[in-house]
Each structure stands twice: as structure tokens, then as C-alpha cells.
């Protein structure tokens, strides 16, 4: 350690030298592969903006300082060459390059590096590829374009959550999302969701704030090998977003401003509706009164299409309709979503400075009534080169968003649940007018009594819910960075300070209501609608601040051998503060209805103000060696100190190494020219340690927390007496950091002059010492302890391929491309005698767990008991017997993912299509469980609802091990409405999550410039597009888009759809004009 530190100091001081300023004129010639002089090639002195272009003969002259100079030669279609000056002259022969596999790429710390140098896999998606489908989320736009990434876009529409996990889930407790980095600065990818997946309000996540049109490119660093330099934060890989910037103009002429305007109009509707049975309508003929007009059950008689009264009798009147199936009923509730996106950017530059300014607005109305999402953002970037070798840049992005979103899941405020509780024959289109007494939830009758006239006795009118339950989120966010550097010759040092500050206020209104039914005859009086009303507000302030001090030094040791050294220092500060205030309808309540203010409370307002501080500092070094542009070796090391672990455990060092060999440099002749023009093999390994969540190693401590029972709670102060109880979770200072070690090997190949380009990677990750809070027996006095709990492995392959079957000089080009991702996750071991741990929250009879020997995210739920593959039933009822305890039933993780796309372009016209698929995972569908219970699910009509024998069933003889074939018929009603309905078999709500999706389809046309040559227009483009367009699911999935989630983007309990917000199909048109 001592030696390493000294090395840092030496390396730093080595750069601080005084350079002589005498100059001379260098001359040179640039030739193409045939030896002809190449005109117009760019020649710059490496590390400066000093440069020129070659003349018609390929010759150039340039005044340069005395000393050892390197020239960088750039020419369209050729590999960038670096040549050392020899006797004040330079001669360069250009080499044709592989467009796909060469060029530069943004790597960790926002360093540009040549792709050929890298000993690990990265994927770069440029602006045009990224926005081909015009999704409003930059992360959703990546779907199907990055091998190794598991992207889950829950709503697919504006403001929704998008999760991106690279090379598998690695942590039980902490966020598994990749680090999202904008222009070198880590951003705050926080969840704007309520913590409870059972009644979720999903306002999206921080990463979706970045406007896709502002993005120049996204580079995904799949594994820790690529992101080791980010330390703990980069343990899950990184998504590096490079925003657009102004360009230098070295033509000598006065530069003009580039203006781009883009307008996009998108319409949205719901991608997949749950399918309803069409044979039976409202009622419950198997129990109770046949003709319960307030019922939410569709367990009534078969449809007879006869006119029949429905709903309540109000003022002696009742509505009448035919008793028949209402097709497309749910569709009557939702609107078409509209989204108008305007984007303007201004940019320019001269030889010393650049600037870029963009303004973006998104105004959209959601599909659920009253929901909306509005976002405004401004970005400003500028760079300048100062005369004394200093340079600096600034990059600022301000984002303001405001949205209203419906609550999903259970509770009176759950829109989808109240909607699904409308029986199959009740026309939803007729429930809309809340001024009609027949639909009203709260009108005052002639006696002054509050009444509801809505037909349903057990759930409120969904239109009323969507109107009165009002959940909003307002965000102000500033993120950006400031950089100042000094660059001279081979030496470059800069300091960069990045900040992401967020102010986010979310509010949740619960209306006060106390209505009696209008109809006081038999079905309604027991079901008044009562809620004391409530209000919740969460004010979140999040600050992320980073400082990087980085020095680099490039040295050419000999003509063939070079090295680049980098040392850096990073300081990270995270500070989060939240002020939560809650008037809880269950324990408190509003005084005056519709007045949502914390002074309007019946009892004390429950207020908490959690504060969270997390700091790290780190020093790192990276030394790269290259030999003849053929062999590359890269050694990295980082030592990090974290605030969240105790001294002794809070300092950790991890080294990494990777190497690349461009073996085609060894090849010559026909094989290289005609078959394999470029080939590289690479190998890498890296470790990333990851610290604990703040305060996880603290003792329990005391708070004035509410004393909770199953459903109620007592909130201190109690009768004005303060009451502090000890916390239920504790940690220990012995907590060690998590460590992920990864090995990867791969190859990048280009055949037939770039006609076929492919990249393959195999990786093997092992994460040790996972930190999580494990449950401890309550008899210890506590419920959980933070501890190092076990190990998880991820092994897999990433493959991407692109082929160009047709490419003609007339401009016709046909590309096909695809990716394949296969990851095998395994929970290797857990400590302390624990066989499994819950991931995220659980609900009765159902958990998502990490169980030893199983993949992460395995469902753990009660299911039907099986004996030798036969369902075991109860011999008296014929109903399946639930397992005595929950059983493990498959994971939410897909077995593999793939994508397939094609681009067809001819002159300015371009047709693009992209299909994506995930296969082999499962998800929990509460829509299925609920519709089974309600009798609206298609499977409830098997055998016309007459009793039948469970297929291949057996029964147990007494308590023996004897099983005999069963002949007792079961009643479908008892199975679906009781056994499923009472949540005895939650595993039966697991649905195959496999799907194929037409993710993107677009047709764009760039109008040839000849038509507007002498106008102000520089470029004109228009197009039609769709994203998330068509979904094909497994046959057994009649319910949901498997991508929908109730756990937001950050929650680890994915695959859990508890009546989540439906996902959207988006389509529209855009125009783009450049001046």
C-alpha cells in the first residue's frame, strides 16, 4: 500500500515539468491504401487543437513545438493513425477501417478510447439507432440493442419506470440497476414510487429524466471490468450517456449556428388488456341471493340477452339493459394518450470554443382519466481552450417534471382493481357520468343524507376513483458538471466537479366520504362507503456531488511500444433528506372534506424526516501498454474508503487487468482483404467491492415509532407522553464489503469488409459477502440483522451480430442485426443456517426469494400438492389440497433474451424494425388471481361451470402414503372463488412471462438537399414510428404484459404485477428540421 501511494505521487509529479516553447515546421504526406496522395485528411498535433488538412497531393505543413511530436491523422473511411515525427517529416499510409468495430468509445470516467484497445465488452448505441423507435425514455430506447442488458420498461410510456440490469442480479438488498452516468457524472437514479408494491403509485425513476434527443450516444459497459474505476457504485456495470455538444470549426471562416427543431406527436393506448369470459354475467348463483345487483361477481347465470334491470333503485327508478356480454368493456374506461414533444437545439463553435443549448418540452395526457406527464428541460454545454494550455467546460441540465398518476394495486384508491370488479355484463361506458345518481358515489338526497347510487356495493366507481384519488409528483432537478484542465504535450490533468441535485415533492390525496346506499333494499344497506380521508406528502431533496482529479500521461517508449498512465482521486458525497407527513385515513383522517392541508387533521399528523449520508473517497490508477497497435494491456487498481463501514473494513483495494490482441494485424493478403478484415480477442478480470447501505452497521437505536398491530397502530406521543421504543433491526461494525469478481473473454470480428460484424463475450461473475438484513427470531428481541449473508453467481454469454446482405452504390442498403443474452444466476450459499431470504416485500402466502441452489428472484408460494405428478385433491370436495407450506416455483429472471432487427435504406428513406423477446421467466399476476375470484377470467368457464374431476388427480388415503385415483368432482366456483380467492394457492397466479414484442417500427425520410439547396434549411426529415407496438405472449398469459411491475425500477422484487399500471403501445409522427 505504501509503495502504491508513492507511485501515485511520483506519477503526478512526473507530469509537472516546464516545456520549452521553441517551434519548427513539420512536413508530411498522407497516402491511401493504393499509395495515392490523400487530400483533405485532418492532421492534428496530438493533445492540442493545432491542426491542418492535407492538400490535393496529400501533403501538409504545420508549425509545431520542438521536441517529440505525435500527429493524429483522420480521414473518412480509414483508421485513425498516430505517427511520430521523425526528422521533422511524417509519412502515413492510411488503412481502411472496420466501421463497426473501430473508432472511439466512451469508457469509464468519460474517457474516449479506441475500441481496439479494450479488453472487455462494451456496446455503443448512437443517436440515430437509439431514437429509431422514438420512445420517450432513453433507457427503453436501448431495449434490444445491448447484449447483456435486461431492460424492463414497466409502462412503456412517458414518466414510467425503466429498470436496467447488466449481467444478472447481484445484490439482495441493494439496487441492482446499472450506474447511469451522464457526461462522466453519476446521476441519481432514484425511484419515484411509494414503497408498497401492493398499492403502488409509480412516478418513474430518475434515469428517465434525460431526454433521448439530447443524447449523442450511449455506451454500455456491461461488466465490472469496464467500470472498476467507478468503484462500489459501478459494481453493476454502467450506462454512459454522452450528450450532444457543439463542434469545433477549424475552417478559418466564421462559423454559423446550427439550429435543430424536432416535433414529435405520439398517441398511446394500452398494449394488452386482461381477457374476460363472455358466457356468464353478474351474480353469485352458487351462494347467497342469485340476483345480487350490487355484486362484483360474474358468477351469475348464463347470458340470455333478455332485458333486465340493473343497479340500485333510486327515487323509484332503475336502469334496464339486456343481460349480455359487454365486449371490449375495459377499453371504455381508458382514453387515448397524447404526447407532444418539442425539441430545439442551438450549437456552434470556433477553433477554441464550442457551445450547445437545447430546450425540450413533453406534454402528455395518460390513458387513465386525469393522468398527465409534463416535462421541461434545458441543457447547456460549453467548452473552451484557453491560451495558456488550460481548458474548461461546463455542462448544465435543468429538468422540471410534473405528473399525475393513478394508484395501482389494492385499496379504495386502486383504479384497476375497482375497474376489474365491474362484472362482465355491466357497461363501463355508462358509468362515466358521475353527475348521474346511478353512477354517483356521493350525492345528497332530499333528507340531507349522503348517498351513493353506483351499482357496486363492494367497490367504488372507477371513474370516481380516478377523479378523486389524486397523486402528483413535481420534480426540479439540476445536474451537470464543471471541468478545468491543463494539457500540455503528453500530460493532461483535470479537475471535474459533478452535481445532481433533486427536489421532488409527491402528494397523495384520499377523499373523505361517508355515503349510504340509495337503495336500502336487501343488497346494499350493509355496505356504506366510509373513508375518513387523508393526505400524504413526501418532500425529497437528494444531492449527489462528485469530484474527480485525474492526471494522464502518455509516453511512447519506442516506435512500437507505448504507454498511458492515469491516476485519479475521487470524492463522492451523497446526501438525501426526506420530509414525510401523513394524515393516515386509517388512524387519523381529515376534518373538512376536500381540504388537503396538514392543519385539517383530526389527530396528530405523523411526520418523519429521514436523513441519509453516504460518502466515499478513492484513489485509482490505470496503466495501459500498447505494442504496434496490435497488443494492448490495461492494468487498473482502486482503493476506496467508505463511510458506511467501520474502520478496518472500510478500506478496500481491488485490482483489474485486461488484454486485447488485434490478431488481424498478423494477417495479410487475400484472407484479410476478402474474408476476415478485422479480428480481436480479449480477456479481462476485475473485482469491485461494494459497501453497505448507510447505517446498516449501527446498533438498533430508539425512535418514537408507531406501535403496530396487524392492521392498526398507536402513534406516540401517547396522551402527550413521548414513547421511544428500540428499533427492530440492528447491525454490527464487523460488516464487510461485498465483492464481485468477474472474468470475461470475448472476440470481435468483422468479415467480408464489414458485411458481417459480430461480437461475443462469455463472463463469469461471483459476488461474495452479500450484505442484507436477514430475519432473526423475534425471541431475540429484534426482527432482523444486517450481515454478510452469502454468495451469488452469474454466468452468461452475450452475442451481437450485424449483417449487411445488400449494399449498393445506388444507395440501397439492407442491414439485419440482433443480440442474444443468456445469463444463469445461482444463489450459491447463504450463511447462518439460512436457506433462503426474501427479496423485497412479501404478502401473505407469497414471497420472492433468493434460495440456495436456485436463481435469484424465485417465487415462494403455496401451490397445489402433487404426488408423482398427480394433483392431490380432497376426496370429499374434489378440490386440490394446498401444500402445507410454500414451495419454490421458478424465477422472474428470463432464461434468455434476444432481439432481431432490420434496417432498409434507400437514399433518404429508411425503414426500421426491431423485435425483442424474453423467454423462460414467470410473473405473479394479481389480475389473474382477482379475475379467477370474481369469475371474469376465461378459465372459470371450463365445463360450463359444472363440476368436473380434476385432471389426473389422486387423493391421499387417511394420513398414509397411499394415493388412489380420484373420482370426486369439484365445483369450479369453490375452486376459483374460494380456494384461489382466499389466496390459498398463490402459486396458481404465476404466469409464463415469455413474450415477443415488436419493439420498434419506423419509416423515416430525409428529403434530399437538392430540393432546398438555396433555402435556409440545412436538412429536412420526417417520419412515422411506433414503439412497444405488438405483443405476443405465451398462450397461458391472458392477462398482462409481462413487463409491467409493481416494484418500480429499483425494487428487487420484480416479476410482481399487483394490478400494476398497464403498459402502453405508442405510435406517432415526427418532423426534424435543421437550419
Amino acid at each position, binding site marked *: 500500500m505504501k509503495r502504491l501511494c508513492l507511485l501515485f505521487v511520483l506519477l503526478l509529479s512526473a507530469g509537472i515539468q516546464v516545456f520549452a516553447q521553441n517551434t519548427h515546421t513539420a512536413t508530411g504526406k498522407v497516402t491511401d491504401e493504393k499509395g495515392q496522395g490523400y487530400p483533405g485528411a485532418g492532421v492534428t498535433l496530438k493533445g492540442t487543437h493545432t491542426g491542418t488538412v492535407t492538400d490535393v497531393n496529400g501533403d501538409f505543413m504545420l508549425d509545431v513545438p520542438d521536441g517529440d511530436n505525435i500527429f493524429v491523422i483522420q480521414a473518412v473511411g480509414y483508421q485513425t493513425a498516430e505517427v511520430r515525427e521523425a526528422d521533422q517529416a511524417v509519412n502515413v499510409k492510411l488503412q481502411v477501417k472496420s466501421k463497426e468495430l473501430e473508432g472511439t468509445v466512451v469508457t469509464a470516467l468519460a474517457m474516449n478510447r479506441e475500441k481496439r484497445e479494450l479488453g472487455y465488452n462494451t456496446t455503443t448505441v448512437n443517436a440515430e439507432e437509439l431514437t429509431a423507435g422514438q420512445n420517450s425514455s432513453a433507457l427503453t430506447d436501448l431495449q434490444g440493442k445491448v447484449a447483456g442488458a435486461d431492460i424492463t420498461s414497466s409502462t412503456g410510456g412517458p414518466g414510467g419506470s425503466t429498470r436496467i440490469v447488466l449481467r444478472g442480479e447481484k445484490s439482495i438488498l441493494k439496487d441492482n440497476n446499472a450506474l447511469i452516468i451522464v457526461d462522466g457524472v453519476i446521476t441519481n437514479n432514484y425511484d419515484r414510487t411509494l414503497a408498497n408494491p401492493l398499492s403502488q403509485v409509480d412516478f418513474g425513476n430518475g434515469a428517465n429524466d434525460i431526454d433521448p434527443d439530447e443524447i449523442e450516444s450511449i455506451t454500455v459497459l456491461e461488466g465490472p471490468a469496464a467500470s472498476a474505476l467507478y468503484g462500489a457504485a459501478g459494481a453493476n456495470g454502467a450506462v454512459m450517456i454522452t450528450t450532444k455538444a457543439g463542434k469545433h470549426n477549424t475552417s478559418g471562416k466564421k462559423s454559423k449556428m446550427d439550429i435543430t427543431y424536432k416535433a414529435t406527436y405520439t398517441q398511446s393506448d394500452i398494449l394488452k388488456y386482461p381477457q374476460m369470459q363472455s358466457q356468464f354475467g353478474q351474480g353469485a348463483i352458487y351462494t347467497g341471493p342469485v340476483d345480487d345487483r350490487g355484486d362484483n361477481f360474474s358468477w351469475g347465470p348464463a347470458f340470455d340477452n333478455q332485458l333486465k334491470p340493473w343497479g340500485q333503485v333510486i327515487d323509484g327508478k332503475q336502469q334496464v339493459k339486456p343481460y349480455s356480454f359487454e365486449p371490449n368493456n375495459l377499453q371504455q374506461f381508458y382514453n387515448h394518450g397524447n404526447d407532444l414533444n418539442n425539441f430545439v437545439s442551438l450549437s456552434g463553435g470556433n477553433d477554441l470554443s464550442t457551445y450547445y443549448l437545447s430546450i425540450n418540452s413533453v406534454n402528455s395526457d395518460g390513458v387513465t382519466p386525469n393522468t398527465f406527464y409534463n416535462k421541461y428541460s434545458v441543457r447547456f454545454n460549453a467548452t473552451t481552450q484557453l491560451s495558456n494550455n488550460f481548458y474548461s467546460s461546463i455542462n448544465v441540465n435543468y429538468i422540471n417534471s410534473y405528473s399525475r398518476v393513478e394508484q395501482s394495486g389494492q385499496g379504495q384508491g386502486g383504479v384497476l382493481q375497482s375497474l376489474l370488479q365491474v362484472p362482465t355484463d355491466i357497461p363501463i361506458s355508462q358509468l362515466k357520468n358521475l353527475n348521474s345518481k346511478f353512477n354517483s358515489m356521493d350525492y345528497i338526497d332530499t333528507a340531507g343524507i349522503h348517498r351513493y347510487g353506483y351499482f357496486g356495493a363492494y367497490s367504488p366507481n372507477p371513474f370516481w376513483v380516478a377523479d378523486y384519488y389524486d397523486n402528483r409528483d413535481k420534480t426540479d432537478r439540476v445536474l451537470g458538471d464543471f471541468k478545468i484542465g491543463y494539457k500540455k504535450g503528453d500530460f493532461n490533468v483535470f479537475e471535474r466537479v459533478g452535481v445532481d441535485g433533486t427536489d421532488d415533492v409527491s402528494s397523495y390525496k384520499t377523499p373523505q366520504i361517508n355515503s349510504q346506499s340509495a337503495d336500502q333494499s336487501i343488497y346494499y344497506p350493509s355496505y356504506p362507503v366510509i373513508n375518513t380521508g387523508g393526505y400524504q406528502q413526501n418532500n425529497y431533496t437528494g444531492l449527489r456531488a462528485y469530484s474527480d482529479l485525474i492526471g494522464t500521461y502518455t509516453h511512447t517508449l519506442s516506435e512500437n511500444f507505448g504507454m498511458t498512465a492515469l491516476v485519479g482521486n475521487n470524492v463522492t458525497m451523497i446526501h438525501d433528506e426526506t420530509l414525510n407527513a401523513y394524515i393516515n385515513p386509517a388512524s387519523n383522517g381529515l376534518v373538512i372534506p376536500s381540504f388537503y392541508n396538514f392543519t385539517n387533521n383530526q389527530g396528530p399528523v405523523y411526520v418523519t424526516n429521514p436523513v441519509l449520508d453516504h460518502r466515499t473517497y478513492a484513489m485509482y490508477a490505470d496503466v495501459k501498454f500498447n505494442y504496434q497497435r496490435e497488443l494492448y494491456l490495461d492494468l487498473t487498481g482502486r482503493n476506496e474508503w467508505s463511510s458506511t463501514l467501520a474502520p478496518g473494513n472500510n478500506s478496500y483495494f481491488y485490482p483489474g487487468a485486461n488484454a486485447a490482441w488485434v490478431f488481424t494485424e498478423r494477417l495479410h493478403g487475400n484472407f484479410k482483404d476478402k474474408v476476415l478484415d478485422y479480428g480481436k480477442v480479449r480477456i479481462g478480470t476485475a473485482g469491485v467491492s461494494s459497501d453497505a447501505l448507510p447505517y446498516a452497521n449501527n*446498533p438498533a437505536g430508539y425512535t418514537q415509532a408507531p406501535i403496530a*398491530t396487524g392492521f392498526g397502530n*398507536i402513534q406516540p406521543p*401517547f396522551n402527550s407522553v413521548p414513547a421511544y421504543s428500540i428499533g427492530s433491526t440492528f447491525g454490527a461494525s464487523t460488516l464487510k464489503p461485498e465483492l464481485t469478481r468477474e472474468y470475461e473473454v470475448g472476440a470481435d470480428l468483422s468479415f467480408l469488409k464489414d458485411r458481417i460484424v459480430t461480437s461475443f463475450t462469455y463472463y463469469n461473475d461471483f459476488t461474495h459477502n452479500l450484505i442484507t438484513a436477514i430475519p432473526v427470531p*423475534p*425471541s431475540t*428481541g429484534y426482527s432482523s440483522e444486517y450481515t454478510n449473508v452469502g454468495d451469488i453467481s452469474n454466468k452468461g454469454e452475450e452475442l451481437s451480430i450485424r449483417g449487411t446482405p445488400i449494399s449498393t452504390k445506388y444507395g440501397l442498403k439492407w442491414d439485419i442485426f440482433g443480440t442474444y443474452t443468456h445469463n444463469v444466476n445461482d444463489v450459491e450459499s447463504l450463511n447462518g443456517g439460512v436457506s433462503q431470504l426474501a427479496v423485497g416485500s412479501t404478502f401473505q402466502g407469497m414471497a420472492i426469494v433468493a434460495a440456495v441452489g436456485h436463481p435469484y428472484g424465485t417465487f415462494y408460494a403455496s401451490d397445489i400438492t402433487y404426488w408423482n405428478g398427480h394433483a392431490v385433491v380432497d376426496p370429499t370436495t374434489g378440490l386440490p389440497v394446498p401444500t402445507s407450506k410454500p414451495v419454490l416455483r421458478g424465477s422472474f429472471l428470463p432464461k434468455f433474451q434476444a432481439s432481431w432487427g432490420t434496417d432498409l435504406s434507400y437514399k433518404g428513406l429508411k425503414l426500421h424494425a426491431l423485435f425483442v423477446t424474453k423467454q423462460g421467466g414467470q410473473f405473479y399476476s394479481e389480475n389473474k388471481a382477482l379475475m379467477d375470484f370474481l369469475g371474469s377470467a376465461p378459465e372459470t368457464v371450463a365445463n360450463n361451470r359444472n363440476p368436473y374431476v380434476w385432471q389426473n388427480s389422486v387423493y391421499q388415503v387417511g394420513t398414509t402414503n397411499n394415493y388412489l385415483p380420484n373420482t370426486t368432482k369439484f365445483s369450479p366456483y369453490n375452486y376459483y372463488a374460494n380456494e384461489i380467492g382466499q389466496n390459498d394457492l398463490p402459486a396458481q397466479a404465476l404466469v409464463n412471462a415469455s413474450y415477443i414484442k415488436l419493439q420498434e417500427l419506423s419509416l423515416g425520410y430525409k428529403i434530399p438537399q437538392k430540393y432546398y439547396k438555396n433555402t435556409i434549411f440545412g436538412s429536412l426529415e420526417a417520419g412515422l414510428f411506433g414503439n412497444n407496438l405488438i405483443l405476443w405472449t405465451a398462450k397461458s398469459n391472458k392477462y398482462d404484459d409481462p413487463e409491467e411491475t409493481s416494484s418500480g425500477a429499483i425494487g428487487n422484487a420484480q416479476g410482481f404485477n399487483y394490478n400494476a399500471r398497464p403498459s402502453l403501445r405508442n405510435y406517432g409522427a415526427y418532423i426534424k428540421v435543421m437550419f
Partner: protein
Amino acid sequence: MKRNIRSGVVCLMLAALGVSSCKKFLNVNTNPNVVQTATVQTLLPAAQLLVGSSVGVDLQIDGSIWAQYWTQDPGASQYRSLEQYAPGQDVFLTPWTNLYAAAENFFQLYKLADSQKKKQYMAISLLMKAYTFQLITDGWGDVPYRQALKGQYVDSNILNPKYDSQRVVYNGIIADIDSANKLLSTTDPVTPGTDDLIYGGKMAQWKKFSNTLKLKVYLRMSQVSPATAQAGIAALYASSPVFIGVGDDAFIGYGYNSANKNPLYAEESGLGYVQNLVASATCIDSMNSNNDPRLNIFYDTTAAGGFSGIAQGYEKATPAAGSFSIPSSYVGGNAQSASSTNAPVNLMTSYESLFLQAEVSARGWANPGMDSSLFYQAINANFNYYSTQLASATGMTAAAADAAYLAGGGYWVTYPSAGSVTQKLSYIITQKWFAMCGNQGFEAWSEWRRTGYPTFFVYSQSSIIGDNFPKRFLYPTTESTTNSNYPGFAPTTTKVWWDLL
């Protein structure tokens, strides 16, 4: 030296950024959202509230259903599995967790008070921990005791506490009461005030609590260890003990504001004010046959007037609303009446104390010949406890109502002074059961398990274990899945140690 160079280099780099000291920079990991040390004044009420919520919600519901005061409304289903005598293990998760949390808080309170020489707080924490552990062991039998509550590192980090036999737990409880008694006898100037939610720091009443608790603990051993029980009680009486009398009832009052509701009512409001609990015919019929005026306190009348119950565990159809009684707001049982919020949670009452004393006398273990008088005092204490409620419900004074009841000549009313001990016990415990209707459900169920009185319990109509009664709670799954010393599943039909019936 090595360390100095390292931190020196680091600090050099940090210094450039204006960070003065690296150690200071990283020293932000003390959780600012909790306080590391509470005060005795804040810890005592929190621990008492945890006991109140357990006794007031889960033990009250489970006890009152299994003591056949209440039954599940056939139109709803929240407590159906208790009526089926087939509850899942996690029906008992909340009381197990909250009672151990309460005990943990009393344990921490004891340590804190000890370190600050606050003897009265030490005494109260010992008594309340003893009281809490009796609830735990009476519910679940063998439970972690000697190794329990020691999860944190400072308390030796025992994550798999061993289970102790119930006798060991009882011995520990008695030892704690004895220790508390010694502390109580001092004249420490520091006493609790309003932070003691039970007695407001009145140490004379804690002394009575201590004696009554000891009496109750010994009497619970009357079947399994009669000699020990008798000797213990004799020793207790030899110290001229004062027991809880009228006005000394140990209870926690609720309803001070909407966030301080009676815990049963808070539970009901959390369940959307659904009336899950209704009157059981077992209790209603027996009280009706006695013309018991206390029906007016414990239950609401039906729409037609009068009191009517639903047969225990009946679930075949939903009777019309208003055709049966529901538990009243005086016991926090009416889910739709706001006055349920004010119902107290009884921990140990004057009538309980008097019935215990009557039993001692009837058994001849102390105070011979006083049993008849104590029996009537106990009934009277129960009427007295509800005098305000009786006046408002019936317009009668407690004394008048009591007199009318005793004069009514109902069953279990005329004490058999000349009868056998068994006969006397049947009167004492059955009357105790009437008195505890819906206000001390768990204690009534425990006394029924110990003595078999009342004798007229019926099997739940939805029992799926046939003609059997549940005799214990189940260990929750948090215990069975995480404690390597978990002794294995014990079904509800396995009796606890002192239950020999």
C-alpha cells in the same frame, strides 16, 4: 509509519478539495434518524404500549373467540381460521413479535435504570417483564427465556435463543417479582409520573400489582405443582400482602386522540371498519339465562331489542344485519362506533384479584372461610368497574344492578359455601369468566384451560379438528424458519405445562 504515509497522501489530495480531515469526512455513519440512548421516561410508556397492543388486540381476539365470548361474523372472514381451530402459524406472528419486543424494551429499560440507579424504574421493568413472559409462556408453552432478548452485540448476540421449559420460565417470573419487591421496598425519590401509563408512578399500587401477579402465577401452577403453589402462596400471605382492590385496576386508557385509539378499534379501523367480531351464543345464552345486566355493557342489543348470539363458529349463511348482538364499544368491539376508541385495555383488574383471593381461600391455602365474601366482592368489583357504563346503558347504579343480579337467582350466583372445593371453584371461575367477558379474553381462556370452567363450552361448528378444543398458540414461522433451536411444530391441541385437563 505506514499508516501515516497512507493517510498523509490521501489527505494531501483531499486537502486540495477543501476537505479538512479524511477521518472527519467519512465520519457520517451514525444514524441520525434514531437516538442511540433513550431515557427511562420515554422507554417505559413505549414498552407498556406494546403490552397493551398485544393484550388489547391479538390476545383479546384469539382469547375471546376461544373463550367463546365472540365468534366470527359469518358475513366476513378475518378470523375464520381461529373458528376452524386451524389457524396458520402466522396468525400468532404479531403477538409473539410484539410481546418479545415489549420484553426487549423492558430488558433495556432495566439496564438503563440500573446504570442510573433509578430503582423504581428497575422494579416496574422487572414486574412488567414478568407479566409479559407469563403471557408468552401461557400462550405458547416452552419459549426462549434465559437466552431471549439478547440479539444485539452488546447483549451477547444470541441469534438462536434456546427454548426453556415452562417451569423454568415460571421460576424466572417468580424470581423477577421477588427482585422487584426488594427494589419497591426502597424509598427512592425518583418515581415515574405520567410516563407510567398504568399507575402514574404510584408505587403503592405497583406493590399491589406485584403481589397480585405473584398470586396469579402461583395459582396457575395449582394443578401441575400444587405443593409449590401452596407453599408460595403461604409465604406470600405471610408477608401481609396488599392486593389489587377496587380502584387499583391495572389498565391502559385510550382514545386521547385519533392516533391513540383503543388498539382493537385501531385494528378494526385498519380493516375498514368491518364488523368481524360478533357475540357468541355460548356467552349470550348463559348470560341471558341469568338476566345478567352486564350484557348491556359487554354487547349491543339487536335491532329487535334484547341480546342474541351466533352459534360458535357458525358459517353456513349470513344472518340479516341487526339480528344478532355485537361486542359493545365499552370493550372496543363495535367496529362502527367511534366510542370504541375509549375502551381501556385491562392487564390485571380488581375483580380478577378478588377472584384469585377467593380461590386461595376456597382451597384453604390461606385466609380460610373468606371465600364466599371474596366471591361476592369480586362480582361487585366487576359491576363497580363498569358503573359508569351500567348507568348509561341501563340507568341503574352498580350496586342496584349487582343486587338485582344476585337476587335473580340465576345459575352460578349463589355461592356454595358448604360445598366441596371443586364445586366452589366451579362458581368462582365461572363467575370470573362472566366478569372478564370481552375485556380479559386471554386470561379467561387460560383459566378455562387450567380449571375447565365454565363447563358449557361447545365445539366450534366450523372445527376441522373434530371434537377438540385448541389449547395453545402456534409458534410463528419467523421462529421456525430462523431459530436453529426451534423445538418443532406443536399443534394447537398440545397442552401447555400447567394444563392438565
